């Protein structure tokens, strides 16, 4: 038992904002996002990297923030659900989640959105099978997998439309 908890400074960019933090060395990225930065959109459930509720994007890759020590994220660029909308405009995927009825209780949704965002970044035209596989690590006990899949497909299509629209101009 120690009276003081060992800490270490880190520098991270969270949703575009640079943060200098002194974090406990045993705290996970999830702890720091929720408790130190009050970004509670990232959810806590299984803490063993199986449920996906705590998924965030770290340097372009979707990761379970419960499995990453905050000190390991030093220097990283992190996107959480709070960072998906730009200037109050929802991302295509966020909008698609609303439009397809993919949101039920909502607790898994931040994680689903981050996994879906990472998937679309890597594979802009995923097949249904690729979506199922890409989001297999994000549990939804409401059972909204069909609607979530439809949302990812719809977001891919709307990105195509937006690109086509930009080309027209």
């Amino acid at each position: 038992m120690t009276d003081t908890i060992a800490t270490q400074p880190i520098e991270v960019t969270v949703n575009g904002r640079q943060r200098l933090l002194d974090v406990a060395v045993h705290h996970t990225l999830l702890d720091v996002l929720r408790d130190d930065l009050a970004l509670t959109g990232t959810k806590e459930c299984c803490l063993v990297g199986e449920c996906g509720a705590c998924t965030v994007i770290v340097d372009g890759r979707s990761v379970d923030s419960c499995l990453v020590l905050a000190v390991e994220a030093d220097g990283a660029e992190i996107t959480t659900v709070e960072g998906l909308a730009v200037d109050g405009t929802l991302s295509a995927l966020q909008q698609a989640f609303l439009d397809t009825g993919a949101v039920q209780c909502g607790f898994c949704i931040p994680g689903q959105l981050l996994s879906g965002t990472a998937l679309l970044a890597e594979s802009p035209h995923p097949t249904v099978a690729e979506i199922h596989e890409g989001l297999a690590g994000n549990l939804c006990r409401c059972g909204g997998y069909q609607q979530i899949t439809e949302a990812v497909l719809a977001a891919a299509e709307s990105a195509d439309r937006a690109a086509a629209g930009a080309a027209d101009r």
Partner: protein
Amino acid sequence: MSTHVIGGSPARLGGLDRVTGGQQYVADIHLADVLHAKLVTLDCARARIISIDTSAALQVPGVRLVMTAADLPQPVPRFGPQFEDRPVLAVGETKYHGEPVAAVAADSKDAAEQAAALVKVEYEELPAVFTIAAALDPAAPLVQDPALRLDDPLARTNVLREHHFGWGDVDAVAASADLVVEGTWTFPMVTHFAIEPHAFMAAPDGDGIAVWSSIQHPNWLQKTLAKILGLPLSKVRVFAPDPGGGFGGKQHVKLEPLVAFMALRASRPVRLVLTLEETFQTVRRNSTEVHVRSGFRADGTLVFRDIESNYLLGAYADIADRTVTKGSYAAVGPYRAPAARVVARSILSHTTPSTAFRGFGNPQPIWAVESTMDEAARALGIDPLELRLRNLARRGEEIIPGDTPADGDWAQTARKAAELVGWGTPLAAGRGRGIAFGIKSGPTTGLSYSTVRLLADGSVIVYAGTSDMGQGARTVFAQIAAQELGAPLDWITVVMGDTAVVPYDQQTSASRSTVLMGNSVLAACRAVQAKVRAMAARVHRVDEALIAVEAGLVRLPDRVLPIVDVLGPGLGRLGGEIIGNGEMRKDAEPGHPLGGSAAFYEFNCTAVEAEVDQGTGDIVLVRYVTVSDVGKALNPAQVRSQDEGAAIQGLGHTLMEHYIYDERGRIRNLGAIDYRIPTSMDLPLEFISETVENADGPGPYGSKGMSEGALLCVAPAVAAAVRDATGVVIRDLPLTPERVWQALQERSNT
């Protein structure tokens, strides 16, 4: 402005916050000066507590409180929705693995966790029972102290209650049966696994207390805390933010009393957020063994059912005995049965307390009873769908004498599912089909108050004490208000989850809210309409009898105005608002075996085409069809979500989910790594959810409750498809690849 929003699928109220991270669940709410709590538990199920040494824990910097049973009022308060059997902390002995014996509160989570590990509990492990057979052994240790069961002839057994239902004379008619099929079917112990683990907070609040909980029934919690703490109801304020999934596991009071006592003792807010592992130790469904004899005539006519069910409860009753009565009371199914005998036992054990879980005691007997329909169909050479249809109750026919008669065209539902799955069409080699019916009684009693405020600009605030845990109640109530009062949906706010503000609602359970609270909100809107009508008469100097107010419109003799156009002149210079109150009451019926008849039935037909991998035993669901009789889908997108969600949850207990206990009563597959629930990879290849809508329900616009139907008969439909594909009959769930593979091996060896 659309005034006809019923039957549409507008964006979910609260959806935006849920996609931006703004939605605050209990664990997301920050209270200033809050203490973090951690439970102290033992590494076995049943133990005598000899001593608890808190001195080392109290030395941890930041620790403010270590609470044991000795710090609570004596005798330690007990609570429970049916029996007041659960103590705030274990008294004298623990009765299940994970039962808290003490709790620590500290300035940080780290300190709380560190200190909880330093609480030294000296204990002696005691013999315990974890299975139905062990609990029923006459020499078994008793789970519940007989002193809590005075005047109960079963007090010296582990049978909490034995229930008997039935009609006709089974023994007399049995002789007229040409065929009797008989067997025992088992249903596993499964857990709710809401992605939001249960979370609780409490804080001293003036001369009372404020409590935050992920609970489905805030008014139950208010009542329980008021009683335990000796406070008037008005001094117990319960905040119930929308739960992150409930499924029954968050219906009743769990650890809120403990957190409340801690907050009062520490004079500071205290929060307790369970780990997923702790939720496994807090809630589960009853595991069950169901023995069924079903008798038929050669033409397939059902002659009798004889059902004996043993439900394994946990160490405290919670609401589990009620699930036993409600599930077994309707166990005969949606059929005409001349005679029926149902015996059901609620058996206590040293395991996680079981509680309500979507389906509420019904999926267990349905698994068994529907399977006997398939075995009978095979033995009689009748198509399984045809056998069911021959016996299915028609609208208006009694299925349980004296109770609500069949309230839908169920054959229409069944035929629709059959058609969608391609019933009777040729199958590819190695594939099979199964079909099953499920029925569940809706709520038997209910009381839902609501208030609707029509504000001066025509916008609306609805107060309804339902918990929106994903089913979308908030959206449905807003749709009702939009329909009746003409406000656009985004001008409507629905307030829930605060007992100091929102009127009383009995509970959010039994798929009741669209029907009961929905009718209450409808009544409140109609009360507002009546006041608008009087106002229009005054403003336009027209006899009130000549005015009608409906669907957001005021119909005067010479013109039609939107309600909002009457409000301005009607309210006048001071402004103000129009307030309407609603009440929907379904009173108890004395002498009824369940205390009341069913408000409606949930009827579902599930039909499955499956293929079985002969090498691995893996079941591939090629096509999966669920059709529910919903009366009227007020919001078709949400109906589909509930229907599919229920089906997928049913696939969990059908294909993969089950607790595995070790010899000391510890759950071996504790947590998300070893306990598997369906993922996106487990979806059927083709998944079809449809409804039948005849506007024949008791809810607003002819709606019925429908959130559980699609879970009821998943298992028998899938098992029948497996049987059809492979020839093997399996009577134990889940149908894991290992179990299916073993059955296939046994088939090849014989």
